[in-house]
């Protein structure tokens, strides 16, 4: 993350920091009063959400102490390593608690409002007070953007984790017989997923000493050149490991599409349905077929 970019976007200059420091010295003694009023506002405005985020006294006290520290840092207005780290931490905490950005940002707005009021009460004779408060808001709003940015990054990471977990679950390679593995592929196959499938397929072939691997693609939405390319590569890699791959479940329209695309499937073994694939697999694996054998 480029922190300088935030400064540029919010047109925050060194003079703004200087101004925040000037008024910050006057405001710091009121920190406890400030935190109390901020949390009173949040309790009122967030209602039930507030209860969810702070279910007991301990969690509330923890949050308040974090707020206290964060705001004291803010009043010192040092754009240093510690400051940035602590803002990242705030963003992470908000992501973990799944606090809605609108709740965070409105509370931020209220906080800046409270500080402005306190400034007029505590330092009525301060020179250039409106200007100092203007800087205060500028830096405060930039900080809001910074925290929300980190928040959305973390949320993105959580989604990526979940989708990885889903991918794991969507490659259920099953040993259906001695030496025969099967994987039904369902949905849309993109490069990352194809890579994933290939890796798990080869691992399982090695582990289970598979003679035949059946890849059933009847549930795949689209077989385009990229997917076909992946299928060919999987077949080749499996063959190098001494395993024979059968791609089953090619529907008439998929077969036609592959031909139209001009894909050379080479010696990749394909079948229209799973039954044919099983028959070939049993033959290869030397399984005697007594049921349904012709």
């Amino acid at each position, binding site marked *: 993350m480029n922190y300088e970019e935030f400064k540029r976007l919010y047109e925050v200059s060194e003079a703004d920091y200087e101004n925040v420091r000037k008024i910050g010295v006057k405001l710091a003694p009121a920190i406890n009063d400030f935190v109390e009023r901020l949390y009173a506002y949040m309790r009122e405005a967030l209602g039930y959400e507030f209860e969810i985020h702070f279910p007991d006294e301990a969690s509330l006290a923890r949050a308040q102490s974090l707020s206290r520290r964060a705001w004291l840092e803010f009043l010192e207005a040092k754009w240093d390593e510690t400051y940035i780290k602590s803002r990242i931490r705030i963003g992470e905490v908000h992501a973990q608690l799944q606090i809605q950005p609108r709740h965070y940002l409105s509370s931020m707005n209220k906080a800046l409002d409270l500080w402005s009021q306190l400034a007029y009460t505590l330092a009525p004779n301060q020179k250039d007070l409106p200007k100092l408060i203007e800087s205060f808001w500028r830096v405060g709003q930039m900080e809001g953007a910074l925290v929300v940015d980190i928040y959305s990054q973390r949320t993105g990471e959580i989604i990526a984790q979940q989708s990885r977990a889903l991918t794991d679950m969507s490659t259920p390679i099953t040993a259906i017989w001695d030496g025969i593995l099967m994987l039904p592929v369902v*949905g*849309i196959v*993109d*490069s*990352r997923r194809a890579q994933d499938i290939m890796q798990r397929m080869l691992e399982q072939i090695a582990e289970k000493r598979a003679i035949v691997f059946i890849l059933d693609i009847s549930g795949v*939405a*689209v*077989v*385009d*050149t*990229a997917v*076909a*390319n992946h299928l060919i590569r999987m077949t080749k890699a499996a063959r190098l490991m001494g395993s024979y791959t059968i791609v089953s479940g090619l*529907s*008439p*329209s*998929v077969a*036609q*599409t592959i031909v*139209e*695309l*001009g*894909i050379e499937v080479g010696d990749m073994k394909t079948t229209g349905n799973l039954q044919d694939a099983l028959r070939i697999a049993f033959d290869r694996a030397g399984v005697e077929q007594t049921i349904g054998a012709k």
Partner: protein
Amino acid sequence: MTQRWRRLRILSQGDVALAILEIREMAKRVNMSSGATAALATAVSELVTNVTKYADRGLISMRPAVQIRRPGIEVIVEDRGPGIPDIELAMKENVSTGGTLGLGLPGTRRLVDEFDIESQPGQGTRVRIIKWS
């Protein structure tokens, strides 16, 4: 009556899946046959994948096309990526700069009924296709 365009952003590989789902939905709505739907969805997959592969980001627009008693769908896929320096070459079989099969563009042309491509190096690429059921 002209139909409204449905437009989707193409930002990441995940958008390929969304575009495919969307086009299948539209195909269903206009009663396209399953064979034509498979061909169209594959064509869309090719074109959108190309955007994520070469241009990083772009747009896909789709709308039901109008022809008497024949349902169809018109699709435009465009990007402002590096463009294709030699379209004639790119439309040949087995020519790829992306380390893949090199069948995408010529294959896509065979899958659909109308196919126009415009590309300027440094300006981007725009492909328009129509599939009739």
